[in-house]
């Protein structure tokens, strides 16, 4: 748990304006800190130990089981050929792993992951990386709607266009979109950052509680309670560094991105998880 003081660096980024306390708050973002995560019972994999298989004729569950089998054998780098837009591939991986899909994924790809670095050379369908906890996912082409829904941590990158409701209910982490994002992106966003280098559709950030959205192109219109903010130097430095990690650039420089934040305190977070609340009451 991070220190819950009021002069944390994240406040300079305008990312947390409320007084944070209690277990419901995530670890503070810090641009200088190492992202050091662990997961209990993680499989000890060796990134230098590589494996590859063709998924063209395989069922979805068999593909996901094969990934686990290879991890148990110590393979830390796995390449899957011909995923053929099948649904629910690469889900529930709670481990360090370099995973590459040579092709496209269908719906619900890479959901519920915590730790892996995933590279997809094609496109992803709806609900990619739903509830992602940590790690990185990089998609070379386009993505469907509800991209990164309820995401809590890590970096989710799409180099092409994404559909509507991108980052709906986002609770942490960073979503980066190289192209355009559809309507209702950032709907009910609660934490984290979203960088859209192209245009954004209507109702951007509608009913967002917190978090920050940066847009490089035109914004069709803003949703209820979403307002423009100002980018400070710390933010600019972070944006530059983060985009450079993925070989991306803001079209007119990071200082010219439009920053969108919540204009009204819509949240009323409790200090306790619901389970704890029951005990107290």
């Amino acid at each position: 748990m991070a220190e819950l003081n009021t002069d944390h660096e994240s406040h300079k980024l305008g990312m947390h304006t409320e007084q944070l306390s209690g277990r419901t708050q995530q670890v503070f973002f810090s641009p200088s800190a190492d992202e050091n995560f662990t997961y209990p019972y993680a499989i000890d994999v060796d990134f230098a130990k590589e494996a590859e298989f063709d998924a063209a004729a395989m069922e979805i569950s068999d593909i996901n089981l094969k990934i686990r089998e290879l991890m148990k054998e110590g393979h830390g780098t796995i390449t899957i050929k011909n995923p053929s837009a099948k649904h629910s591939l690469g889900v529930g991986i709670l481990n360090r792993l370099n995973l590459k899909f040579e092709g496209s994924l269908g719906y619900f790809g890479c959901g519920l992951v915590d730790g892996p670095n995933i590279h997809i050379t094609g496109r992803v369908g709806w609900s990619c990386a739903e509830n992602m906890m940590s790690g990185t996912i990089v998609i070379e082409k386009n993505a469907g709607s509800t991209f990164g829904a309820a995401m809590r941590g890590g970096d989710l990158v799409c180099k092409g266009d994404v559909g509507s409701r991108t980052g709906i209910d986002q609770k942490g982490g960073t979503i980066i979109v190289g192209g355009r994002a559809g309507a209702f992106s950032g709907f009910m966003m609660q934490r984290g950052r979203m960088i859209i280098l192209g245009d954004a559709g209507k109702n951007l950030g509608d009913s967002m509680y917190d978090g920050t959205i940066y847009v490089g192109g035109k914004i069709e219109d803003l949703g209820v309670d979403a307002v423009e903010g100002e980018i400070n130097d710390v933010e600019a430095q972070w944006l530059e560094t983060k985009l450079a990690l993925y070989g991306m650039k803001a079209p007119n420089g990071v200082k010219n991105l439009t920053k969108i934040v919540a204009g009204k305190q819509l949240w009323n977070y409790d200090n306790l998880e619901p389970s704890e609340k029951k005990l107290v009451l």
Partner: protein
Amino acid sequence: MCGIAGLIHRGNSADIGSQMTSMLQALKHRGPDSTGFALYGSGKNQDYVMRFKVAEQEDLATGFDIQHAIKDRQATVDSRLEEMGVSITSKEQATEYALRYRIAFDGDLKRVIDYVEDVDGVEVLSIGHALELIKDLGDATVVSNQYSLSGFDGTHAIGHTRMATESDVDIRSAHPYWAYPFNDVSVVHNGQLTNYWTNRRDLERRGHRFMSDCDSELIAVYIANRIERGDDLHTAMSRSVDELDGVFTYLVATADSLGMAKDVMAAKPMVLYESDDLIALASEEVAIRSIFPHEIDTFDPYEGEVRVWQS
């Protein structure tokens, strides 16, 4: 949930019967109740193809009398066509209850259709120079085999796999819907319309007929009404995005074009592949992949988007 798919070959033709079967079979998990095809043949001639049914599939289990009723209904249809001056150039029995006639006629087709459909249990599924509309209970492979769709040479097609939510599991409620009384216009839809009855009452007052209680039929009738009032296809579809409430993605096909429209919330999926010679689109990319052996680039159309392609 339902799954929809469409494809259009630009400047050439192909075995669209097999292609659409493959696409719809890949979407079976989205709706196993019934499957429908609207196939547009490449042969252009002055004859019309009329597809119609004289009973529901489920009627066959109701007793021996239905067999007699089917024969009687077909005979009545034949006599009424003759009475209206329609020349039947060929007859095919697709199933026990579904028929395909090739007819020649140069008068008011709407009057003919109304007279034919006045026969109890008879519904005209489609009429057109290019359109052949086939729909029945079962998955794509079952329906395709039942109606021998493999090898159907054509330029474009739309199809539907249905999960019944708003109305019964029967052929009447299956998609595609033909945009009566317009030749060669058909519609498939995924979603729910929330101002169905308001629009239906309005369209019925204007003289349009509804054969089911399925909200998807409204789109076909709506498009027919707009075309009747002078809109081109793109204009009619753009207007529908504003005037139809609910969540929907739908496809429309005419004799030489294919269109898609998505509601302003973009709440229903659609994946699109576009190349110089072929457009393919479906509720899920797996359907498009089923007809491509190699990697392809696809994308999602955006909210409120309307597109129309020519064959």
